[in-house]
């Protein structure tokens, strides 16, 4: 169990850094979506299914959608 959680946390850190580094903003949005998704799984492992549901529905689905709309209305690539 501890190994799985360690791998997930490391993956979370990697995708958070990737979200900062990516020049393509759509890729950055997907990477930050991955952070939320892993956070939801971790909440489930910590026996907080209510919070996990909220995190998965809001953090991974709605916020990603809103960011994608915002990127579509502005510019896709960062200079």
């Amino acid at each position, binding site marked *: 169990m501890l190994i799985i959680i360690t791998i997930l946390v490391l993956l979370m850190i990697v995708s958070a850094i990737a979200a900062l580094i990516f020049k393509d903003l759509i890729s950055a949005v997907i990477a930050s979506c991955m952070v939320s998704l892993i956070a939801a799984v971790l909440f489930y492992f910590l026996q907080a*299914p*209510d919070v*996990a*549901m*909220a995190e998965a*529905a*809001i953090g991974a*689905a*709605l916020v990603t*959608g*809103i960011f994608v*709309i*915002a990127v579509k*209305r502005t510019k896709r690539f960062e200079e």
Partner: protein
Amino acid sequence: MRKLIGILSLLIIAGGIALSLKEIPFGIPKTKIGDHFIKKGVEETGAVNIVTSVVVVYRGFDTLGEVTVLFTAAIGLGAVIGIYRKKRVNRKVESSSLIVYTGCRFLFPILLLVGTYIFIHGHLTPGGGFQGGAVIASAFLLMYLGCKGKRINENLSKVVEVLGGLTFIGLGIAGLIMGKDFLFNFLPKGEPAALLSAGIIPIIYIAIGLKVGSELTGIIDNLIEKSQ
């Protein structure tokens, strides 16, 4: 140089957080109130899911504030976007591919069903009004992205939103009249773990679910359709 300073300050903040968290033992209850909720919660409220009994009954007034914050945010977004709204140009929207269209049409009713299930069973299983409402809003987001040109009925969604809020406040005031305090659980509690149990909790959670769902859908509608 700037990056170096940033990394250094980040390390200092991380060290500070780690040092202060080292003193606090993990998972040991410091107050007695949590113990009370776990031991007496089911008996006092009739809801098997203790999180729900805390959110709706013990801390119901805070939930009302939370709903109000979301309502204010949605109204503010609508006002800001409404000011800068241009005339709606009938742009030629590129229709999505057949696979995306069919997938969205297939997933949309299932997601609606899951969201409704989550907030109707809020007092029995994990989840509740906010989570169910967010799932419903994500179903509408999928429909907006996949099936271009389809929109929700704005007036209907506003009516649902207002009715949800009024049900919540009305039940609170009814508790004030029937019992002692705001949001008093005046309906019979019934058998624990049955669908029709826990008094006013399922009614409040259905109201919150519909309200949150229509509010978040309204935000998505504002962002996609009106801000072109």
